[in-house]
């Protein structure tokens, strides 16, 4: 018999973890215990309590304490350590991974992050996670008195209210904080959301100067596509905003059509497009790795191919 403890600073993830936690708890013959941080989350705590969670620990603290992963880790460790053994699930956000790493060290637990699947097999927690930018799928077994698995957003559906009445238990900690917050700013949300785009024309180092982006957006317009880029264009050159950066450290996109123009196709970039429906590559170098990862390709100079594509699209389709 083992219990499941879960935490996230993100409400959507909390409801997703609640569902997963109940499933695992039923299999393990244990209970499902949620941890919620901050005075502003009383509502979240009570809705979790109606979603099959046995006990929700509501940590009374100013909402700002949630911005300190070390405080959250101390709270979750307190809840987990009250159980002789526990599987701990943490939402795999950036801060969530910090919570998980600290928690694992505090509990002497093995841990895995970015898990897309978490299953129980005997006493082991079997997790799936990506390696090498998603090119390699890793399956691992976590075992021990305590284990920590960070679960990716949207890997599991949100729990549905079951009518079961779990308890909300108000708790507190006196966290030891070793950093201080000087300033918090919301990141400007760009109107562009490439993760929802159906078609994307993406451009890379093959582009010679910023002004030539016009040519790329011309093609994108003719196709009804959004414009994205590989890392160098946003991070190094600043020609496009970070919200356009597709790849391992940028966005993961899933368009039906992805046109990679002047992109060599390094693994870091391909990690962001592996779920794309059809990939088209335009590159001068016929040995570029992008061609081995594309459905259709044209070996040629983008400065000739792109205008020609636009011309033919407009001519034949009257746009």
């Amino acid at each position, binding site marked *: 018999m083992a219990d499941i403890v879960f935490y996230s600073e993100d409400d959507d993830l909390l409801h997703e973890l609640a569902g997963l936690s109940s499933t695992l708890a039923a299999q393990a013959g244990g209970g499902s215990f949620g941890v919620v941080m901050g005075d502003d989350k009383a509502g979240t705590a009570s809705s979790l309590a109606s979603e099959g969670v046995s006990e929700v620990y509501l940590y009374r603290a100013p909402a700002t304490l949630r911005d300190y992963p*070390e405080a959250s880790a101390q709270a979750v460790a307190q809840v987990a350590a009250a159980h002789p053994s526990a599987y701990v699930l943490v939402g795999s956000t950036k801060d969530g991974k910090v919570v998980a790493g600290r928690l694992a060290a505090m509990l002497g637990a093995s841990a895995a992050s970015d898990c897309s699947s978490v299953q129980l097999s005997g006493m082991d927690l079997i997790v799936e996670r990506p390696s090498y930018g998603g090119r390699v799928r890793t399956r*691992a077994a976590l075992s021990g008195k305590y284990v920590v698995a960070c679960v990716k957003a949207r890997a599991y559906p949100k729990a549905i209210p079951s009518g079961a009445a779990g308890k909300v238990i108000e708790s507190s900690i006196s966290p030891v904080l070793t950093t*201080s917050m000087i300033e918090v700013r919301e*990141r400007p949300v760009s109107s562009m959301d490439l993760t929802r785009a159906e078609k994307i024309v993406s451009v890379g180092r093959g582009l010679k100067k910023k002004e030539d982006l016009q040519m790329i957006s011309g093609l994108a317009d003719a196709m009804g596509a959004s414009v994205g880029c590989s890392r160098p264009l946003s991070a190094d050159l600043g020609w496009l905003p970070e919200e356009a950066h597709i790849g391992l450290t940028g966005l993961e996109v899933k368009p039906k059509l992805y046109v990679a123009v002047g992109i060599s196709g390094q693994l870091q970039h391909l990690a962001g497009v592996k779920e794309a429906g059809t990939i088209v590559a335009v590159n001068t170098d016929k040995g570029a790795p992008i061609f081995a990862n594309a*459905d259709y*390709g044209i070996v040629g100079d983008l400065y000739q191919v792109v205008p020609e594509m636009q011309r033919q699209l407009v001519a034949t389709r009257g746009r």
Partner: protein
Amino acid sequence: MPNMVVLVKHVYDENQLKVERETGKVSYEGVPGKISDFDRKAMEAALVLRSVGGGKITSVTVGPEEAAKSLREVMAMGADQTILVKEPTAGQLDSSATADILAKALEKAGGFDLLICAEGSVDSYTSLLAPMLAEKLHLPLITYAQSLQVKDGTLRAERILEKRMEVVEARLPALVTVTGEINSPRIPTLLQIMGAMKKPIATFTLADLGLSLGAVGARGYKLLEYSAKSKERRKVVFDGTVPEAVTKLLDALTRDGLVG
């Protein structure tokens, strides 16, 4: 004058991994190793801080003998000294084991003010090592830093998260992880590369650190399967003149219902 430590990981070159076509099995045989790219950014961040406030940069790795290659790379960039904790099976260790080894090695080296590492490594990208290490060494931790500043014994960093950015401070000694966007690392000159070949690398074994393979980490991580999952792409290259190739491409996309 902060003494800095830059953590480095020696990984397989991800562009040269071999995948068995039918089974999806990944083979490392003959795949060359290299420095995890993001570590060069951690090194560059340290070099920038050194150029402003002085200090010494020590680079540390846990890896097989071959990992010396990655240390040479950061030495060519400008690291003052390097430490290799030699462990042939390092590639199979989980974050908790690596954190235990690094914690011991850093305690032994001692006297550092700022530890810098990348937010993740190109192979497993767990982002778990730094928080584990911070916990073990009782150090303040700032993760996902996009910029760093050290003044009067305090580290100030801009953190980039999913929906917001933060400015956070910590008193030194501290540990910081940097994002892939923090800088563009310098490319060493041939002279610097050759110079780095001659510099010594302090080498320890686990036994030297009073550790053994069976007694590091949480020992509850077991790799079951490692397989390449990649959608099979059609790899059709259209030839002919540019207008001809474009026509063939657009015809194919029209057939697929993607344009028109």
